[in-house]
């Protein structure tokens, strides 16, 4: 099958590649760009470990073809830290122990940033509802919810 050329932006850097049309975005990120922070948890588009921001909104990178990204802007977990270190949401996950094995964490942090972007002061019920698409099999969610609430608070500064 003929390769298709695609150009898009990942973490502020323009990327051009010729890919097999079957290549999923998550495989492109991990295998072509070596951005392995985005995880593959379920392979059935349910777990949210592969969540990235596509044009500013969270999307599951296992349910997108890389060739669909022409002209798009993608942000992965590698792209959220600033020059001064961790993103406030990452710092909140560290401070509040919002992870155990850490596998779902990249998706949780990307989703947490989006929740904070859309809700000024998200309460527990809001955070739990908004996390419908992100599964964690270790923590029972308690500290993830606490981390996102704290991260949202520090993002508002």
């Amino acid at each position, binding site marked *: *099958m*003929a390769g*298709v050329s695609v150009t898009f932006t990942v973490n502020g850097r323009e990327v051009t590649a010729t890919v*097999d*049309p*079957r290549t*999923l975005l998550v495989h492109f990120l991990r295998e072509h760009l070596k951005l392995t922070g985005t995880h593959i948890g379920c*392979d*059935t*588009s*349910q777990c*949210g470990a592969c*969540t990235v921001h*596509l044009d500013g*909104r*969270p*999307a*599951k990178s296992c*349910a*997108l*073809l890389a*060739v*669909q990204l*022409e002209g798009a802007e993608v942000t992965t977990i590698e792209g959220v830290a600033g020059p001064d270190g961790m993103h406030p949401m990452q710092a909140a996950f560290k401070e509040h122990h919002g992870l155990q094995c850490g596998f779902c964490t990249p998706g949780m942090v990307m*989703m947490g940033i*989006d929740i904070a972007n859309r809700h000024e002061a998200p309460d527990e019920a809001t955070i739990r509802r*908004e996390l*419908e*698409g*992100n599964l964690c099999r270790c923590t029972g969610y308690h500290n993830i919810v606490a981390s996102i609430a704290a991260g949202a608070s520090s993002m508002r500064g």
Partner: protein
Amino acid sequence: MYPFTYHRPASLDDAKARLSASEDGRPLAGGMSLLPTMRFRLTSCADLVDLNGIEALAGIERGDGHVRIGAMTRHAAVVESPEVGEAIPALAALAGSIGDVQVRNRGTIGGSICFADPAADYPAGLLGLGATVNTDRRAIAADDFFTGLYETALEDGEIVVSVDFPVPARAGWAKFGNQASRFAVVAVMVSLSGGSVRLAVTGARSHVFRVPEMEQALAGDFSAEAMDGIAVSSEGLNEDLHADKDYRAHLIGVMAKRAVRDALAQ
């Protein structure tokens, strides 16, 4: 995935030309159902025609007595739309109950109704609100659009352009969702317009259906109690590990009442 040729048309005419030139072409909308299904090799196509670059297919307009939603309008856009929220809040509630945040950011109304999953939400929205599906070649009433399990009245190469929803006097949405997949175990859309009632159920059979006994009772008295004593037969209802057919039949009664109460609360 089995291999395919990817097409990125910039216009509806371009998409139509590419589909008609292919022996085995398929449009790609949000891809929230189609791409996972292709990944599992449950389906395949020779030519995948991506509609995501066709701006004219997305958008929401308030018309005279109806709301028009473009086929490539994402669920999140319907949830956030002031026009939908003001005219048909039950439709915004339906869109907000689909999948999860990530899915609502990509999934589209056109993709949902064309895929015609037996547990999808939008088919109940279209049938319960009496919507009309506009394609590149004709207008199809919702009553005629959904024809079977994953089957619609669309012809080969026919592309859905938009859906027109008449603005009802009242409408309500109630969903009993699967805790893992968020698909409907049973969900109901009910609407009242000029004394006539439509009540549509998804998740319970091969495809969405209306319940005439409930509609007649509600036409005389639009209240949850009006449906007391109306039992939906479990014959022919879906059974799976989440719910047997008797449980689904019971849920139809419960969800119908909740939908009516939701309509009365608005």
